[in-house]
């Protein structure tokens, strides 16, 4: 009986450590193994990675940040997101709405957890002093809006 309990306890600890390890890896931008088709899953977003064979280490670093960003949005991890989105962040949403960091985080908080996203056409370019990322975001399932956030106040960014 005691031996069975000990085995159960060890199994519980092993499972718990595995979950913590996964969570830590994702929060640091490390990727889970690729899906069978070569894409990767970051939170609720399936990402088609670009060909990085010509990328500089700096461009790869920013690409890893973009992957971690998707995972953090899915988890609602605004603590980590606040280390990525600058305090003076400024954005223009798809329908022309200007949005700052605090507004954006509120929108992320209202995101429909049933929604899944895909990102493709991803490209990272270092222009010396600044790095530009371009991509295409699409929504699968959940509410009809093509963007993240609550319908009507979505951000698409």
């Amino acid at each position, binding site marked *: 009986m005691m031996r069975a309990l000990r085995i159960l306890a060890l199994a519980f600890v092993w499972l718990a450590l595995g979950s913590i390890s996964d969570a830590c890896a994702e929060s640091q931008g490390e990727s889970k193994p690729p899906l069978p088709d070569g894409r990767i899953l970051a939170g609720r977003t399936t990402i088609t990675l670009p060909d990085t064979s010509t990328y500089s280490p700096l461009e790869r670093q920013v690409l890893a*940040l973009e992957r971690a960003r998707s995972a953090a949005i899915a988890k609602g991890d605004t603590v980590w997101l606040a280390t990525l*989105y600058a305090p003076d962040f*400024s*954005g223009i949403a*798809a329908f022309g709405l200007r949005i700052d960091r605090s507004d954006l985080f509120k929108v992320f908080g209202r995101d429909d957890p049933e929604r899944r996203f895909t990102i493709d*056409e991803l490209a990272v370019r270092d222009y010396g*002093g600044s790095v530009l990322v371009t991509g295409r975001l699409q929504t699968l399932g959940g509410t009809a809006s093509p963007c993240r956030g609550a319908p009507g106040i979505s951000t698409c960014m």
Partner: protein
Amino acid sequence: MPGGTRYLHVYVKRADRWWLVRAQATQIMTKN
């Protein structure tokens, strides 16, 4: 499936770390 959006993110390095400072998204209205 909706066409989705295309987006641009601008990162700059400040105090030895990268920050996302600007973003702009455009809704895709065509099949391209």
